């Protein structure tokens, strides 16, 4: 018998080697207690959270929690069914209404996760014979959506407008084309040049999808994302997003002004063949989304935090993923996995949690300590965070 798990032997070996050096497993952290959007207890120690994508800190918002509790009482713990059968309750419809208000768009479709939103929309839109043109650094859910849809996949160099344009021009004029872009790329926290990219797509007859997972609630005057900030949101055919970042719960969605969009509910398999989200999750999401529409001050504070952390880390001598703060993600580039894991552990010992990101999730085989800021981090916490980075960086010889 061939052991089907033997293909993972190299990874098992790599992990064992790393853990044998005495490094704590960075991928099995448990939060024993969560005190707020920015503080949890890990290994019995109070820890500042700087790697949760909880950008707007909505997880502990009083109105959000209250709405969830009420829906839990009124509608029960779950729907036990598909959206197209018994799984659409009024909170699901209301959540889609909240999204339409938030984006000022005609249609909204809620999925059980953001991953499933990309998987479903991309695989359903782009089938056999169509082309998906994507940025090489696209999220796994985008690649998986391509694989599921059997479309021809064309990749272009990260954020390279000219490379995108060249490839669009080489494709058959009559073929169906979907260009998939992200507003903020989550590994380095850099922003896409959407103004130029969307223009190039339009000029070459391609439909466009922008994943705004890491920008919703924060970037753009109304928090609609990078496409809003770039002034091209009306030219984007489909926007994908998630509830598991700024919105502060779980779920995914697609919004669109396309007049035929509603048919997607019947033909999109990751929408049809799975249970819908619990009504309490829908109630927390819609309450959070509506509050995010009026969160200009929080957005401003989050920008301050992000800029302050970026400047401080640069000043300490860390190598960062972007030359300036472009989003709420600040990526610290580590020389290799071992030193990355050591630094991660030293930070945790100081009382700071960040994400350790490693290949294949990262571009260019980089090991990253990825920091995501929250609008609820105080300016003093950012000072504390910088102090922890300095101490840990010196302890492991990273600076």
């Amino acid at each position: 018998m061939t052991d089907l798990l033997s293909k993972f032997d190299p990874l098992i070996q790599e992990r064992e080697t790393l853990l044998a050096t005495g490094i704590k497993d960075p991928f099995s952290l448990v939060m024993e207690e969560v005190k707020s959007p920015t503080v949890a207890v890990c290994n019995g120690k109070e820890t500042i959270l700087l790697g949760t994508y909880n950008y707007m800190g909505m997880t502990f918002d009083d109105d959000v929690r209250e709405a969830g509790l009420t829906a839990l009482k009124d509608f029960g713990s779950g729907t036990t069914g598909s959206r197209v059968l018994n799984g659409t309750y009024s909170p699901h419809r209301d959540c889609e209404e909240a999204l339409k208000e938030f984006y000022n768009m005609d249609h909204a479709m809620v999925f059980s996760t953001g991953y499933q939103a990309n998987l479903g929309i991309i695989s359903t839109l782009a089938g056999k014979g169509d082309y998906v043109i994507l940025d090489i650094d696209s999220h796994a859910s985008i690649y998986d959506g391509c694989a599921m849809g059997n479309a021809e996949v064309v990749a272009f160099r990260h954020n390279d407008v000219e490379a995108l344009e060249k490839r669009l021009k080489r494709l058959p004029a009559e073929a169906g084309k979907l260009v998939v872009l992200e507003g903020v790329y989550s590994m380095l926290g850099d922003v896409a040049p959407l103004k130029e990219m969307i223009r190039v797509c339009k000029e070459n007859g391609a439909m466009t999808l922008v994943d705004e997972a890491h920008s919703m609630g924060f970037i753009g005057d109304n928090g609609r994302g990078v496409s809003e900030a770039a002034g091209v949101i009306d030219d984007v055919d489909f926007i994908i997003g998630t509830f598991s970042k700024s919105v502060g719960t779980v779920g995914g969605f697609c919004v669109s002004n396309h007049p035929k969009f509603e048919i997607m509910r019947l033909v999109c398999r990751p929408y049809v063949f799975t249970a819908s989200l619990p009504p309490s999750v829908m109630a927390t999401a819609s309450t959070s989304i509506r509050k995010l529409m009026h969160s200009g001050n929080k957005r401003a504070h989050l920008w301050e935090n992000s800029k302050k952390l970026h400047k401080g880390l640069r000043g300490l001598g860390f190598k960062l993923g972007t030359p300036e703060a472009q989003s709420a993600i600040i990526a610290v580039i580590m020389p290799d996995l071992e030193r990355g894991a050591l630094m991660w552990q030293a930070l945790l010992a100081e009382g700071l949690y960040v994400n350790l990101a490693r290949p294949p999730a990262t571009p260019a085989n980089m090991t990253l300590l990825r920091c995501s800021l929250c609008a609820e981090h105080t300016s003093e916490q950012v000072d504390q965070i910088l102090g922890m980075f300095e101490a840990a960086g010196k302890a492991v010889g990273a600076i």
Partner: protein
Amino acid sequence: MASREEIMTKVEALIGPFNNKGVELKDATTFAGDLEWDSLTVMDFVAAVEDEFDIIITMNMQAEIETVGQLADAVAKLMDN
């Protein structure tokens, strides 16, 4: 239209800057095994080939191409279309 031989010559020239180990190139030379390219190098190289011949090599096609010879064949076929 370019002959298979002309295509091969151009492909070899494009491999040059990425051939850090100075591997001798034959039809059967593999990109992952012999040249030891990682995904990033592959992407840069594919982009160079695409620009040289003004073609698109989709990721679906790339998955089928393992050797230098297979690449030359694929380029010839794409230029034919």
